[in-house]
């Protein structure tokens, strides 16, 4: 349900981009959806469509591209994909990361050296790739 808050950001920003590009009607919105935020795509898509009503986004096709998430240890340099460690999380932990992805530092550590000091190099949250 908090997907609505993120969807609002997308709609707002897409409208700004469309305006800057002088688009009279938006045909396509390209989104990259980061794995770490574990967006509920059904809710998100519904929210985007509702919030687009009566705007130039109304009939746009929204294309979702999955954005795989990678983590990189600042101590030992090891790189791994979010899904390698994802299954070790319980529901409460997953939900915390869903709301605030940076809390991943509480719940996940480097599989190689055990450090919590790692970087999310890709796939954190929702990004707009283009508005056409």
């Amino acid at each position, binding site marked *: 349900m908090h997907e609505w808050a993120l969807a609002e950001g997308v709609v*707002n*920003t897409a409208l700004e981009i469309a305006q800057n590009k002088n688009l009279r009607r938006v045909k396509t919105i390209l989104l990259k959806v980061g794995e770490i935020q574990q967006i509920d795509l059904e809710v998100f898509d519904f929210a985007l469509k509702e919030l687009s009503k009566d705007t130039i986004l109304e009939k746009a096709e929204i294309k979702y591209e999955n954005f795989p998430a990678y983590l990189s240890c600042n101590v030992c340099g090891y790189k791994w994909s979010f899904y390698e460690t994802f299954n070790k999380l319980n529901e409460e932990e997953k939900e915390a990361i869903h709301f605030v992805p940076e809390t991943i530092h509480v719940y996940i550590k480097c599989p190689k050296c055990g450090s919590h000091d790692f970087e999310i190099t890709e796939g954190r949250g929702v990004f707009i790739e283009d508005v056409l």
Partner: protein
Amino acid sequence: MKLIDPRLSIIEKRLENIKRIIPVASGKGGVGKSTVSAFLALLLKEKNYKVGLLDLDLYGPSLHIFLNNSHSFPKEEYGLIPVNINNIDFMSIIYFTQNKPLIMRGKELTDTLIEIFTITRWNPLDFLIIDMPPGMGEILLDLIRLINRLEFLIVTNSTRIAMETVEKLINFLKEQNIPILGLIENMKIGDQDFVREKCNSLGIPYIGNISFYDNLENYYGNYNEIINSPISKEISQIVNFFA
């Protein structure tokens, strides 16, 4: 085209029903930013203002101790609705960390701050009090960068050691033309006037002082005791300063 962060454009809208936004800051740690934030929120609410309280000390959140609440959870409703505690709308990182250590680098402080402002749906408020961390890094810089109607309340204690750092924050805010409501001297010891004089020379209002209370911690979490404590009486006069 570079990837665009869709969150930035929504932050202003999230705050549009908030009349005044007051970060309680110092630069220095341990001078009473959180204590002042908590009392301020309670006392403004006692005056029937609608008050929100946001803990942005992400490494060392502490307002949940004053409010005696860490096991609630913000309601999910088109975003997150802050937890209502004694009619104060409260948001803290604590709800997502299980009170465990959260280490982060600066870039991640930025992302956390943006995320919190993006997903939190504040009710209409007269005041949003923001409890700031020590230092002059991302949380301060991004708050200034993203929100342009902040009114800073500065807190210090009576020592030169603290003022050395507090003065840096004040000078920085002044140079960047950020409004400063004034300074509160907390845990006042002795009857020296050097903090007040420093305010004069820096050209910012000296709002008042708060004494040192030995048994302050006994009140935490107990709403009625806090309201009737001697420290509340003292802080009330400070509240009159700006509301």
